[in-house]
């Protein structure tokens, strides 16, 4: 409890209220091991001022009353040989001792509880900080895992994009193929049209020429004879027709 009043140089951890001495831990100052917990209770003392070890030391030889008998004997010795001298200060010491002992007996537990409460609060604050840090770090770990999962999904994104690009290329290729086809077809059509035109023109020209020649070759003499022939033919035909009609 008296840690509240002691100032001892501490190392690193600023949030730990425990004032732990360097020599108490591992020798290197940057050790990562957790600090060992403080012992719960201190060394035991009998009547506040005599360490329990004396009693344990003398117990095998002299039993329970041994140290008390030793104390009484020592007291008698120093009083009788006046190694401790009874003077006015003895009275003052007796009065002070009484008051002190009365005070400690009466208010000891309360002061102890108060000091414990203060310590408890300090520890709790540090624990809160630690818990907060732990939760935030755990959250950070989860977020990191999520990010990693997201990064894995990037593969799908790349595949989709690759598909897009492939489709664009394909479309482009097909357009160009169409264009090529159309152009070639147009050129071929042109050649065909050209040839048909040629043929038609030749035909017409030939026909005209033949007609013209024939017409010019028909002399007037031939015209008369052909007309007379046509008339006689017609007359014959008419006669035949009449004959048929009356028969």
């Amino acid at each position, binding site marked *: *409890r*008296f*840690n509240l009043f*002691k100032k001892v140089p501490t190392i690193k951890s600023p949030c730990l209220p425990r*004032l*732990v*001495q360097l*020599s*108490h831990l591992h020798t290197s100052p940057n050790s990562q091991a957790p600090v060992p917990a*403080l*012992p*719960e*209770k*201190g*060394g*035991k*003392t009998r009547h*506040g*001022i005599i*360490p329990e070890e004396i009693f344990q030391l003398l117990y095998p030889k002299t039993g329970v009353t041994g140290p008390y008998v030793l104390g009484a004997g020592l007291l008698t010795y120093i009083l*009788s*040989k*006046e190694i*401790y*001298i*009874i*003077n006015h200060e003895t009275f003052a010491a007796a009065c002070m001792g009484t008051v002190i002992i009365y005070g*400690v007996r009466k208010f*000891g537990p309360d002061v*102890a509880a108060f000091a*414990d409460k203060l*310590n408890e609060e300090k520890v709790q604050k540090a624990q809160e900080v630690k818990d907060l840090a732990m939760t935030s770090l755990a959250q950070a770990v989860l977020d990191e895992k999520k990010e990693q999962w997201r990064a894995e999904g990037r593969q799908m994104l790349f595949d989709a994009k690759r598909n897009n690009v492939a489709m664009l290329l394909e479309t482009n290729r097909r357009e160009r193929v169409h264009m090529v086809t159309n152009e070639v077809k147009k050129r071929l059509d042109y050649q065909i049209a050209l040839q048909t035109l040629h043929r038609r023109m030749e035909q017409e020209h030939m026909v005209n020429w033949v007609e013209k020649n024939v017409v010019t070759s028909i002399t007037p003499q031939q015209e008369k004879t052909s007309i007379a022939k046509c008339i006689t033919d017609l007359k014959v035909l008419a006669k035949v027709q009449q004959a048929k009609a009356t028969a």
Partner: protein
Amino acid sequence: MADRIVPLGEKRLMDVKLGELGSWLGKRDFTPNGVLASIRNGHDRYYNKYINVKKGGIGGVAMLLVGYVALSYMWEYDHLKHDRWRKYH
């Protein structure tokens, strides 16, 4: 507790046998550094046993105060000798 042989100079006081006390004292380190080291060691041991605990009692501080009282009485004894009640004991 005979796990290994400890050289005499490093044994703790309670493990030294009476006959070896003289030679043990001779081996102890009385240079200033050694004296300081032993003081620091003793302080650490007392501090860690009685004061640096979660629920310390009054013993830790009370023993120091009693020790202080006793020590100051011893230092003043020459003055106090004159308050003795009898001359011959």
